[in-house]
């Protein structure tokens, strides 16, 4: 699918904003977790709603994964999904200063906490560069240890099509790999375009 609801200029600007935003996010995440974070270059594309589940599988690969969703609100509106395709609960618990005994609720809370940090840092960074005011709702668990094909069902998606920004995270010295996917519905993209235009003008 072509990027028909975002111009080439806007797309370039978004890529740049995302790149800078991720750089800043990486630094602040490292500061919170106390570990060096590996971040991929953000990939941006537009997808049909029906393609979103398959896109998630393509990113996370076949296998078992957990996913957390979190909404962002304000000038920019959408939802972020963090897919944990490979992680050691023990390693993450250490990073987030959880005690040794990690029961089932605590291990879920841990994923929410990590997601909140990643989503907050990345989207916060982008929003700050775009000088857009955004807030976050509490994250919630979308799927807990299911096949990646079941992370999200097409019929559970309200939007018709969406702008998808994907970033891969990893930790150098830990067993940890996850994907952050930012999804903005078609009707919310207009606000993003205005923010991007403003950003381009101010360059």
């Amino acid at each position, binding site marked *: 699918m072509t990027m028909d609801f975002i111009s080439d200029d806007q797309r370039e600007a978004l890529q740049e904003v995302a790149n800078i935003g991720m750089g800043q996010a990486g630094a*602040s995440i490292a*500061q*919170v977790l106390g570990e060096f974070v590996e971040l991929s270059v953000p990939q941006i594309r537009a997808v049909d709603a029906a393609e979103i589940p398959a896109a998630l599988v393509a990113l996370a690969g076949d296998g078992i994964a957990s996913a957390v969703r979190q909404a962002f609100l304000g000038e920019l509106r959408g939802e972020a999904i963090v897919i944990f395709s490979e992680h050691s609960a023990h390693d993450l618990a250490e990073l*987030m*200063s*959880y*005690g040794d005994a990690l029961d089932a*609720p*605590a291990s*879920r*809370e841990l994923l*929410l*906490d990590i997601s*909140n*940090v990643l989503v*907050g*840092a990345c989207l*916060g960074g982008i929003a700050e560069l775009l000088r857009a005011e955004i*807030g*976050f709702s*509490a*994250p*919630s668990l979308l799927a807990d240890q299911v096949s990646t094909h079941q992370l999200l069902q097409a019929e559970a998606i309200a939007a018709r099509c969406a702008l998808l920004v994907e970033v891969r995270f990893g930790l150098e010295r830990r067993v940890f790999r996850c994907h952050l996917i930012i999804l903005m519905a078609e009707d919310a993209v207009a606000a993003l375009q205005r923010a991007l235009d403003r950003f381009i003008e101010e360059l």
Partner: protein
Amino acid sequence: MTLPAAAATSSALLESLVERIDVGVFAVDRAGTVALWNRFMAVHSGKSSTAMLGQNLFAMFPELPRAWLEKKLESVFVLGNSAFTLWELRPYLFRFPHDRPITRGLDAMRQNVTFLPLRVAGGEISLVCGTIFDYTETAIAQCRLHEAIAALNTEKAAQGVLIGKLEAAQNQLLQSEKMASIGQLAAGVAHEINNPVGFVNSNLQSLKKYCEQMLHLITTYQAAEAQIADSELLARIAGLKQTLDIDFLQEDLPELIRESEDGLLRIKKIVEDLKDFSHVDESEWQYADLNAGLDSTLNVVWSEVKYKATVDKNYGQLPAVECLAAQLNQVFMNLIVNAAQAVDESRGMGSVTLSTGHQDEWVWVEVRDNGCGMSEDVKRRIFEPFFTTKPVGKGTGLGMSVSYNIVEKHHGRIEIDSHPGQGSRFRVWLPVSQPAATEP
């Protein structure tokens, strides 16, 4: 009102709002020193704002999960974004007694907490504000909902079991109805057949006697042939003997009668089986030793079994069982004969094992063989009257249906475990005592 005065009023309003709002509001700086503690916090924690302000949060609440909370606060300071805790995963941050001391509730207030970054001077984040929402009522409601769903699921499972039982009962009912109607039919047929068989049998006996007499006469005549002088007559007799093949006739006639007798005997046996099947004649209910019954039955059928299989006995201690002993013996006989006939003689001697046992208010008698076994189809039809897998003339197809009815009358059941090529196991379960209502 002047501008500063308006601002002062507005500020006082805000202050009063934060103080009185029905949400826990507190704030700490990066060192964990408390900078704000509203009335909700004071009322629920029992620590006034005067006592809290300027104090270290962790010093005042040593039970807080310090390392985790510090990390959480730090992430808010560093990222400038909110952080959250949810009651479903972490029931509470502060252990506050809930507001249901009388009506039953939960052990402590359930809380959703949001940690907000506060930029007081406009620049750096200097404070993190925690807002605590009381979710106890929601938690109680959700708990009840879970209980209701669990109860529904339990009920659903129980209903599933009941439906299964109902289906089984219906199948049994169909089976026993079929048995009953066939029983009536069989009784009628047995009665109708008995009369003609009776007079055919009686006539046959007379016929046999007459034939013997006639043959005796003919033999005597034959001995007298030498006395005949008329050569023409002799030639006619010789011709007739030739045409009639009199030697063969003399030989065959008694054989035909013997075969007919045999056939009649078989008809009588079938009629007897049919009568047994419909329980035309009942014996007395009594307490009997099934092990002894099994032994005497084995004696009766020993000639059927001894050349085909070795018999092993594995009897347990049995209490005396209330039963119609003669009828149960018939069941055992059927099972033993069937087991012996299931033996594949091409593989040498088979093995038949008789076992008995006792469990609670039930006893069981088991007949196991290592013979040909049964297919699913045979297993399904085994209790059907006139269903037989034996060659024509060898079985009436009534043995197992008779057994089924006898065991059912004893309020027992027959378990079958059989696989083609691996042998069969029949286990008859019988209650030690019969339910009072059905005793004669």
